């Protein structure tokens, strides 16, 4: 018995293993899935909630690790998005298998070969995917030792593992391949694994150079953009000028006759060209675009009114509460128009409001994908964050059973969340499906990426906090307004081309990622000690602009709001902001990063600063579940040149056991620079015709002259502790520290992001 999801897996796994020793049956999954539990927040189904990490989703060991005559293969459903996780996961597998890195293959995200780990997102990769590999590898290692012990007739504890060989005291030895012969790894993982000694790791904790960098700096094939299969054709799409616009006419015939053009596709409001040469495709696209007449059907708010408009739109209200300082975080079922929270009472009540404009993911390389429809299988090469949900979406869009669609991850330009990756994969699939046999490469143009990627949502927050006479927090009321942060591919209608074709499919209704991870309300529940917390998320369900996940989701503005409040309360009670934060925290790891950052920065309560300079401090533990991050920084503003210069940034982070210190530093530095860009400069211009930011001129981001002079990253390692996600942990604290430093430098506490255009309009 198989389920619809499993059949193609087992089929292609069989192909993958052809000739190998481990022919597997996935029949067991069928019965497991009947009693399957809920989906996790990344769109994968939990089968065994007791297992560590993503073994919950894929509990069978041979889904992760296979050993046959050709060697050892480790599989991960997570993908490299430019954060270095491919190398880090590889390191984890190597230590736990006691195998040198170069002695085994490492395969990532391919619907035919790897476990389904849902999306690679939310700083989950090391925490969930890394943990799964950590345990699966340890369990397989133990099975190998046991098998070798039987074959060599030696007690397992007398065997030594070295460089892929299992050695007996008398000098006899077996390779892993020999030991695995006849061994069935198609076994359910167990809840606990044989222990490993962190002090004996050869790779974990070391700055192993990333496996992908050499090709990237020497012009090797590294991206889906670099694939050139024989017979490949180039496609370009023509998009409506804005959401909802319908096509009146387009000169398909004239464009069909242009040089190199093989096909012009016109289906409802969907337009595309397919040509032999890439430049020919671009010229044909331009001609088709110039000829197209559209009718606008929607009106759009502008940057000045968007936050007011958000408050008028249909919404669902999600109320999250925490009662008692150690209380559970409880999120109630949504209601339409919940009653507002009662006013906070206390010796002193402070209020902070913040706004954020729409932001672009803004990948440097516009989204790209390749697809071919051949022998009844549609294969799609994609830089999607989630090949399994994408496969389901594409299958639904084309009316194919899932087993006829295979999605293979190949790197693209960094995405930072839900950008055009899935949509362009759907474009490629749609076109390839109409042109059997021909590999079709689709790449979006810059204006298409900017105009049609799901935006990071505009948001407004309002926080009211009561304190007693000593400054202790007594009540916390956080309200926020936002459109969805998680419009991932839960149905084919979440793929943009599905809206445009004549047989259009509507997106499934939005639904937020629940607490404690949170959506727009991510990080809205404070880590600070407060006995009475209420967060009202006004989840706007009708989107004036399409929005979805962008690094850190609501945490960016929520941390800004919370930390601005902590600064204000510190000032109100005459306390140093760092000391005040420490006094409101119980978590020792939180305090440790704050102390470390303050110390390394040389934080003093009232620094004597020259005019136009300011310092800021901020802290957050991402989602209250992942890495801890504290940041201190110094800025100088130049009102004449309308510029903010970030002088030095000092950060301390705790991400549990560190797998690759240099990789972690790289991520933190990147997060700080990226969040500086968002916070200081970035906003999508919106107006009567919709999204008006179509290029880097109309959407300025930070450039080299504006990059901080210096960033110092201090890491607190926790050997033997769980891996905690890192990639998005600096986004909130960076923004909050900047807001604070700029306030000091300018004397204006501005909580409207981005700061620079609001400071000097």
């Amino acid at each position, binding site marked *: 018995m198989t389920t619809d999801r499993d059949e193609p897996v087992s089929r292609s796994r069989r192909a993958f293993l052809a000739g190998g020793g481990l022919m597997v049956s996935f029949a067991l999954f069928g019965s497991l899935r009947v009693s399957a539990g809920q989906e996790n927040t990344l769109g994968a189904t939990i089968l065994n909630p007791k297992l560590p990490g993503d073994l919950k989703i894929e509990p069978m060991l041979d889904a992760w690790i296979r050993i046959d005559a050709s060697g050892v293969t480790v599989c991960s459903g997570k993908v490299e*998005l*430019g954060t*270095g996780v491919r190398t880090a996961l590889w390191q984890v597998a190597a230590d736990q298998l006691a195998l040198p890195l170069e002695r085994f293959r490492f395969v990532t995200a391919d619907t035919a070969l790897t476990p389904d780990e849902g999306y690679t997102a939310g700083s989950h990769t090391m925490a969930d995917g890394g943990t799964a590999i950590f345990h699966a590898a340890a369990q397989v290692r133990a099975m190998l030792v046991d098998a070798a012990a039987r074959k060599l007739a030696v007690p397992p504890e007398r065997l030594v593992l070295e460089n892929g060989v299992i050695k007996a005291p008398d000098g006899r030895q077996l390779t892993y391949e020999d030991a695995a012969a006849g061994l069935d790894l198609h076994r359910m993982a167990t809840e606990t694994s044989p222990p490993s000694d962190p002090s004996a790791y050869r790779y974990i904790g070391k*700055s192993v*150079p*990333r496996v*992908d*960098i*050499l*090709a*990237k*700096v*020497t*012009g*090797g*094939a*590294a*991206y889906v*953009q*670099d694939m*050139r299969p024989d017979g490949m054709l180039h496609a370009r799409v023509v998009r409506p000028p804005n959401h909802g616009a319908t096509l009146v006419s387009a000169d398909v015939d004239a464009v069909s006759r242009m*040089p190199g053009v093989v096909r012009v596709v016109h289906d409802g409001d969907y337009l595309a060209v397919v040509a032999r*040469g*890439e*430049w*020919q495709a*671009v010229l044909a696209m331009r001609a088709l675009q110039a000829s197209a007449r559209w009718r606008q059907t929607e009106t759009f708010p502008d940057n000045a009114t968007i936050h007011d408009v958000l408050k008028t739109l249909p919404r669902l209200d999600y109320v999250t509460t925490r009662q008692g300082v150690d209380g559970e975080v409880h999120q109630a079922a949504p209601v339409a128009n919940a009653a507002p929270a009662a006013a906070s009472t206390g010796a002193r009540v402070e209020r902070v409001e913040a706004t954020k404009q729409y932001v672009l993911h*803004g*990948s*440097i*390389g*516009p989204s790209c994908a390749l697809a071919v429809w051949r022998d009844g299988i549609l294969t799609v090469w994609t830089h999607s964050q989630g090949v399994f949900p994408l496969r389901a979406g594409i299958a639904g869009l084309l009316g194919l059973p899932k087993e006829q669609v295979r999605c293979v991850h190949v790197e*693209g*330009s*960094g995405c*930072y969340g839900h950008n055009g990756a899935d949509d362009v994969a759907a474009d490629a699939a749609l076109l390839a499906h109409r042109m059997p046999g021909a590999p079709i490469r689709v*790449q979006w*143009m*810059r204006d298409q990426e900017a105009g049609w990627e799901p935006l990071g949502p505009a948001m407004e927050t309002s926080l009211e906090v009561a304190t007693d006479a000593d400054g202790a927090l007594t009540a916390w009321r956080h309200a926020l307004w936002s459109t969805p942060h998680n419009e991932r591919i839960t149905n084919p209608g979440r793929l943009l081309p599905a809206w445009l074709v004549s047989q259009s499919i509507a997106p499934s209704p939005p639904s937020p990622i629940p607490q404690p991870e949170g959506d727009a309300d991510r990080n809205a529940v404070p880590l600070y000690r407060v006995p009475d917390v209420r967060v009202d998320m006004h989840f706007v369900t009708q989107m004036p602009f399409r929005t979805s996940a962008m690094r850190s989701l609501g945490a960016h503005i929520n941390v800004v709001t919370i930390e601005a409040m902590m600064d204000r309360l510190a000032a109100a009670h005459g306390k140093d902001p760092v000391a005040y934060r420490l006094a409101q925290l119980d978590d020792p790891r939180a305090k440790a990063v704050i102390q470390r950052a303050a110390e390394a920065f040389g934080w003093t309560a009232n620094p004597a600063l020259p005019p136009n300079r300011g310092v800021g401090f901020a802290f957050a533990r991402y989602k209250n579940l992942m890495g801890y991050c504290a940041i201190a920084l110094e800025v100088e503003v130049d009102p004449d040149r309308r510029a903010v210069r970030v002088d030095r940034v000092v950060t301390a982070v705790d991400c549990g056991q560190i797998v690759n210190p*240099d*990789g972690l530093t*790289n*991520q933190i*530095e*990147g997060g*700080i*620079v*990226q969040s500086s*860009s968002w916070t200081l400069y970035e906003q999508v211009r919106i107006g009567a015709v919709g999204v008006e930011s179509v*290029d*880097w001129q109309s959407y300025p*981001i*930070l*450039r*080299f*002259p504006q*990059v*901080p002079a*210096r*960033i110092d990253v201090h890491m607190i390692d926790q050997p033997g502790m769980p891996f905690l996600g890192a990639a998005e942990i600096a986004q909130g604290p960076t923004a909050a520290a900047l807001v604070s430093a700029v306030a000091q430098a300018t004397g204006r506490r501005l909580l409207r992001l981005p700061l620079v255009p609001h400071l000097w309009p």
Partner: protein
Amino acid sequence: MIELTVNGATHRVDVDPATPLLYVLRNELALNGAKFGCGMGQCGACTVLVDDRPVFSCLYPVSSTAGRRVRTVEGFGTPEKPGPLQQAFIDRQAVQCGYCIAGMIVRAQALLERVAHPTEQQIREHMNPNLCRCGTHMRILDAIRAVAATGELHRAGEKGPAS
């Protein structure tokens, strides 16, 4: 037929003379280094050297390369023997997604061939046209500074840059 010299080798390609150099490099010559980012001269992902000057290959018509030497990141070294900037980027792991990186290396090469020991400000101003969205700037600057300190690309320049 259009003739062009890329990384010291001469190629003849059958394309519309108005085709931007980028498309010829990537498709006709199967070179991956120069990337499409914006097609508008706004991001630098497509940067290559034409007679030692950095140009946006997404805008530069292939026909304009006649009589000129085109260099791409592939010409600076190989995986076996990376060039000085490539090695510095590897040493500092100055890559996140890496999509911008070939363009960064090419633009930096132009500066370091011309100026032996550029100042921090010169480096930042020179790199201004190239965008990185991952925030790898600190490491990119660090890698460029490291090669600038040796002055080795400039010395190579004095001998007449190898093509």
